[in-house]
């Protein structure tokens, strides 16, 4: 039985990796992965293959042998002809699909998170610097659990009166209106949202909404209303307490560990 060449093995690994990412991880196990990310991973697979085959001279020659034979050996004239036609055709197709006018709209060009201002404001009143501003009702969590509970309950009311239409019943960004929005509303159940930001950051995003987003990192495309026009400071702080209480995630703090 003829031994499979190193080149063929590498080719199978390369195609296998793509199938695994595209259909197994991006289909069976989880949700589809964007093509750009798959492209990035495939570049790494290619690097890994090239590193493996080229570290030793003997292995590198073994890897190159079928390429060399295809290019010079008359035995492989048909294969050569097929490749000479197929490679330019594939490259043409690739170039065309990349350059052709696309009908679907592009993704969201915004930054992952907007840069907050240095000062936290409610309407025009400066509350404190963004670094120092704290939820004035947070201390009730330890000092007066009953008062804390009532603030959380008030936050729950505010949330289900105003926010759940977009951010969802379960705070997972899957509200009734979510499917009509791009970008999708924030998913507070995601482990990367609440734990990475201070409460002051959330106060700023809620109070200023989409129109209050900073000049840097534009263009923005947020449908978030300016809630300071409709909610009091207390209501905003309360809804922030509720978000954390419901999801179980704690906001970013800068404790005495430093």
């Amino acid at each position, binding site marked *: 039985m003829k031994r499979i060449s190193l080149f063929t093995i590498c080719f199978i690994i390369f195609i296998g990796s793509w199938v695994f990412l595209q259909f197994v*991880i991006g289909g069976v*196990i*989880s*949700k*589809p*992965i*964007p*093509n*750009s*990310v798959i492209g*990035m*991973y495939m570049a*790494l697979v290619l*690097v*890994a293959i090239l*590193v*493996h085959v*080229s*570290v*030793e001279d003997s292995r590198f020659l073994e890897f190159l042998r079928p390429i060399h034979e295809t290019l010079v050996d008359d035995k492989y004239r048909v294969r050569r002809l097929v490749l000479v036609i197929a490679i330019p055709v594939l490259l043409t197709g690739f170039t065309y699909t990349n350059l052709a006018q696309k009908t*679907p709209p*592009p*993704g*969201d*060009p*915004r*930054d*992952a*998170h*907007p*840069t*907050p*201002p*240095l000062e936290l404001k409610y309407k025009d009143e400066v509350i404190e610097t*963004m*670094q*120092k501003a704290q939820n004035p009702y947070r201390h009730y969590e330890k000092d007066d659990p009953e008062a804390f509970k009532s603030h959380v309950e008030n936050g729950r009311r505010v949330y289900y009166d105003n926010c759940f239409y977009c951010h969802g019943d379960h705070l997972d*960004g*899957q509200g009734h209106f979510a*499917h009509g929005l*791009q*970008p*999708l509303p924030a*998913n507070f159940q*995601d*482990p*990367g949202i609440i*734990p*990475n930001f*201070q409460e002051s*950051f959330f106060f700023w995003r809620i109070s200023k909404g989409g129109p209050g987003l900073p000049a*840097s990192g534009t263009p923005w495309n947020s449908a978030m209303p300016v809630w300071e026009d409709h909610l009091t400071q207390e209501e905003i702080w309360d809804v922030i307490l509720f978000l954390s209480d419901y999801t179980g995630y*704690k906001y*970013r*703090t*800068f*404790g*005495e*560990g*430093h």
Partner: protein
Amino acid sequence: MRKNSLLTKKRVYLILGIMLLGYILLSVAPAFAQDATDAEYRPFPLIGSRNAAWIAAQLHLLFGSFILGVPMFAVIIEFIGWKTKEERYDRMAKEFIKLCMGAFSTTALLGGVLVFVLLWCYPKVMSKLSGIFGPTMIFYVILFFGETFTLYLYSYGWDKMQGRFKGWHLFLGVLLNVWGTAIMFVSNTWLTYQTSPGTQLRKLTEKTKEAWIESSIAQNPELTRSEVMADVTDHTVIPLHNETTGEFLGTVWEAVNNFTWMPVNIHRLIGNIAFGGSIVAAYAAFRFLVAKSKEDKAHYDWMGYNGNFIALCGLIPLPFAGYWLGREIYMFNNTMGINMMGALFSWLFILQAVMIGVLFIGANYYLWSGMGRIDGGKVYARYRPYMIAVIVICVGIWMTPRTLSKISTASELSAMGGGNHPHIGLFGLMTAKNTAVNIIILTTFLSFLFYRRSGKAPTVSWKGIGNIIISVIFFLGVVSIVVIGIVGFTVDTDIRVNILTPWQVVIALTVMFAVTVLDIFMYRKASTSGTIRWGQISERSQYVLILLAITFTSLMGLMGYARSGLREGWHIFGVMKDTSADAFTPSLSSAVNTVSVIMVIFFALVGFIFWLGLWGEKKKENAVQLEAEVATESDD
């Protein structure tokens, strides 16, 4: 006829040159016609003030990094040569310092250019900074003189101070490093202060504390003294300026000891070693590729190996130092931290991951290639595919963006259910990335361990148990790092940042330390089954060394853009606004272009300096050869 055509050609070039010079003078003339008395800013002709300062500063820093990094390991190598009495170490250290000498004057020249550009383009900023840091600038000049004369003595005295003076020569080498490190620490104060003009309460003098309390009350007369101090602890960051007038309130030392000063010092100190090692490795690779004799090939192969080893020694702790710096930036100002990791500069950190991935993959590739020239080195080849897989998977995790909205189509975003992929998106969080980095570092360490063991067989009776213990240490270390990484998804960020991540680092360092100690004892009296055939390494591996130097340079340029750009529209963050036409933060693509231009200029200058060294060497060799021929003829 030929001579005439050459003359004509020369004349054409001369005329073209004069025309070009005239054109440049005409185009820059309006800029110099600006009012030069009380201007806040003066535009730099053609490329603009920011680009001029950027290019001059980055080139100065790249050369500075090289001349500060190289003496650190040159003096260690010289010491090894002295103790082991192996002349080749002394030759290599001398060659390193020779490269340094060429780059030293260029560094000083670029420093001068930078000062002129800053004084001309940003007089008000420079006046503010020199008003605060005046004494440190005088200290800097003294240090610079110290370093210059020590370097001259160290370099020119190399041959004279052999034998019984070697100890003194080594002392000069150490002194050179003391001057160099002090110079860097001093100049770091100015730029770190611009980024983080504040310090913690516990570091303030009573006088500054009082001045700050008074300025807070003056700013808001309704506040009482106790209200100002209400939530203030020893760790609270206190600005060193009156927040209304911008007047400096502190002492020089408080400005020096600002929030990011020490993290930047340590990050740059380690970075200089890595960068210096990579540049000398690239130099050795170039000399290897052009070498004609077997001896030269062997020497430069060995030099390249040492350069890469030094670069690796710097590269391994570098991510830890970088993490500390990032953490301090968050601690100083959360807005700046979010801007860095989650907003405007977040994609830069994806680029950074790709480039550090290239560095680690390249460094491992070089080690694995090197095992091919050791008899008996192939024993470890069977582990290689798994190590490649581990490194590549970890690099993949490190370079996965948290939010994919910028690189996805609208339909892909809908299919994912938002900008964050439910599973792949988890790789974008720091706990996953930190875990991946630690595993990459341990795998690279394993490659180095295999390299060290190649061609050797331990003779100690406990070699079997020793190998089992080493395997168990590695296994437990990796499992602990992964478990901590997984736990990191579930705990508060404060705990992850301040407890879990440092523990991952401690575990990685402990594994490396424990295994190194055990391995040294195991292989102390090892029998050597094969020799290293220096000079018999693939040319591909040498190109990898050059690629590593290029990657290091680009990485430094890009991260420099992040460090400086983080201030956004401020000369001194939160204190002095940038109101010039260049106040905007350049986009990532624009920064990449500028850094690429800087990199090309840097390598052109470095190439020229190396070529000068080679030229001088050739002339010397020719003279020696001529002398030998004359001597032979007169003997006849």
